[in-house]
């Protein structure tokens, strides 16, 4: 036990002293938390009416448009949670859309051609990621405007009920930040054994350890504990910062989170170990791990919604372990609901893979060193 404690201490010290490793395990996830939190924190929903805030748009009406139509436009806008900014030329309209003046997000020009309305929507090329959303608002706006102009009240009304299946209401930022935590776990897990087994092996540290009474299994256990401790400290700091900076209070189920954390870390360590076996050279294994992590980060639905991608890319996403790590983390932090049977199945599979991969990797590395 004393040997183990000494080993863990030494490994932690070595990790803290290595500025580069510290960047990847601590600073990198924190930076992502701050960047994504600040960048996307305020953009919560794709529905205009549910925003609570009015959306600003610029409108240009041609000369033929009379006061009655103008008032119908205002009425329609109000009913849809839109705030029009009236401009007096097409050039001004384009300018305000392009420059986003006064918070304008898109523009509409309207021409009355003897009760046939020619509507033109103007979108900013810089907001291409929101174009579909704006287009759908313009379509809705035109439908509503036509009905308002005809003095026609809807025959069928629609009542939208928002369902939450989590104990506490979920915010957009909480949802994104739980994904960032999943990324942090995956990154520190996948690189963990490459750093200790790969680089220590290269520096002949493992060879020297074999010459001492320390067993291979003790070193492996100490290294795993070291990685788990460093990673959990990172996650706690992320959560604390999320709370302080973005007022995100995760509704954590400690049991589920602990299970997800350990199974995900073990799985990722196992995958990292397999990469090390495959490439032998730690730099090559680290590079492969970085490529794999980058691909996982983008295709696992953490930063971009998987559902909007074509089916083949969605299927590819479902092959990536980070997709499931993110799903489990969101569930255990109260950010989404999932079936308990699914949750446990994923965790059991993770642990089974790790239970096979990590000992095999440890054994082979030690054997290689003994030879």
């Amino acid at each position: 036990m004393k040997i183990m404690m000494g080993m863990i201490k030494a490994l932690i010290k070595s990790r803290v002293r290595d500025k580069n490793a510290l960047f990847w395990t601590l600073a990198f996830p924190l930076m992502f938390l701050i960047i994504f939190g600040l960048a996307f924190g305020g953009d919560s929903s794709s529905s205009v009416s549910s925003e609570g805030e009015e959306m600003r748009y610029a409108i240009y009406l041609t000369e033929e448009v009379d006061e009655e139509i103008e008032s119908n436009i205002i009425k329609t806008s109000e009913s849809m949670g839109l705030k029009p900014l009236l401009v007096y030329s097409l050039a001004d309209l384009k300018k305000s859309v392009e420059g986003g003046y006064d918070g304008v997000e898109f523009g509409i020009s309207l021409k009355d051609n003897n009760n046939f309305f020619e509507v033109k929507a103007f979108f900013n090329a810089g907001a291409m990621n929101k174009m579909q959303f704006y287009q759908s608002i313009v379509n809705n706006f035109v439908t509503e405007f036509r009905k308002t102009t005809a003095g026609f009240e809807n025959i069928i009304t629609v009542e939208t009920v928002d369902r939450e299946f989590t104990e506490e209401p979920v915010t957009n930022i909480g949802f994104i930040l739980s994904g960032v935590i999943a990324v942090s776990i995956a990154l520190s897990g996948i690189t963990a054994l490459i750093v200790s087994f790969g680089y220590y092996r290269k520096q002949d540290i493992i060879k020297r350890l074999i010459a001492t009474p320390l067993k291979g299994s003790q070193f492996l256990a100490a290294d795993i504990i070291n990685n788990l401790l460093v990673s959990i400290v990172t996650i706690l700091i992320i959560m604390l910062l999320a709370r302080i900076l973005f007022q995100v209070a995760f509704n954590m189920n400690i049991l589920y989170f602990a299970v997800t954390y350990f199974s995900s870390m073990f799985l990722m360590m196992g995958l990292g170990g397999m990469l090390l076996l495959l490439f032998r050279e730690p730099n090559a294994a680290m590079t492969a791990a970085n490529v794999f992590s980058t691909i996982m980060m983008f295709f696992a639905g953490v930063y971009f919604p998987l559902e909007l991608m074509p089916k083949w890319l969605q299927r590819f996403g479902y092959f990536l372990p980070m997709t499931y790590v993110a799903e489990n983390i969101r569930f255990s932090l109260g950010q989404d609901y999932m079936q308990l049977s699914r949750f446990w199945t994923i965790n059991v599979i993770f642990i089974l893979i790790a239970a096979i991969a990590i000992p095999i990797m440890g054994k082979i590395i030690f054997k290689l060193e003994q030879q």
Partner: protein
Amino acid sequence: MRNQLFKSLLISGLRERETIFWTLLFPLIIFTIMVLIFSNMTGEDLNFKMAVIDNSGDGMGSTIIHQVFEGISTPENQEDEPLYSIIDVKNKNQALDLLKEQHIDLIVEIPENFNQNFNQVVFFSKISAISSENKPTIIIERVPMRNLSQIASDIMEQILAEVNLEAAKRMNVKIPNASISTEIVGQTQNFNYADYFLAGILIMGFFSTGFFNMGINMTYFRKKGIFKRFACTPLKNRTLFYATILSNLVFMAISFVILLIYAKLFYKVSWAIFYPESILFLIISAILSLSFGIFLGSVSKTPNSASALANILFFPMQFLGGLYFPVFDLSPAIKWFIYINPITYLAAGVRQSMGLMEAPLPYFSLILVPMLWSIVLLLISVKIFKWDGGEIA
């Protein structure tokens, strides 16, 4: 001799697998990922699953609604998936369970009094005004935090709005017609994601060479006492310094050529990157990235600390510099960083000169801000740079 030095630096760089990977291959991977994601995120493959609960029994209103649902759940071609697939459920509880477990995206409920209210509106609305609570209502239940559920609900609302329009026409209400067209502003040619990302990833490649090659090389030379050793030879330290700059510029050129060939072959990018103005912005990018490298090499004592500092600076700069996604409409809390970040100006400048999109910034600032950064970084570096500091191993 100078040529020899430059050659040997270049060859040693090309022999390092890590350098090759991060400066030459990694940009290709990121480019592929970004183009794949953004050019495919069109929602063309969308298929929503919904449960319909009809408590209204038989009647004209519910028949119309069912006809509409049949239309949207039948694909245009047999091999395609419909926009909405209707999942059979026994009752509301089952539907809610399915929604909770993400087996469906939406529940559409037709309430018990729907047909009765529908008939009342259709037959008596001209005689007496119908209060809103007596109007036939369709209830849509969704999970707002789930993208698919949100979109499914938005589209369903649009479909039901069209049903209302159709009903109005049948009731002889004169609804004015309208046409909708679209124009994208701030763009001077057809937008292409591959061109958009080519500009961003080229700048990313340049900066990673400057930050990681130049910066780390300089600290390495000092740490290993190479500058000191040079002082004992007829060659001046400055020669090594210039050779390092030149070898990094060649790395940038190689990275440019490889990415361009790859993007041209597989993603059919345009030649707009060769417009004189685009080249000007790329040259400014190269100068600025080397300035950052020199700065890092001056302030860091070891290659390890230079690498950590490079990472800390480079990640926010690239993500909030508009290399991968538009940044000008992001939250106001982060805008200050976007506007002081020189990469913002370079990315906007290259894209504007390629005719992809107008930069929402004054033209002079696109050149002035990065150049000012470069001058300030070089002045600081001149002030604090030391040739020695390391030990001769």
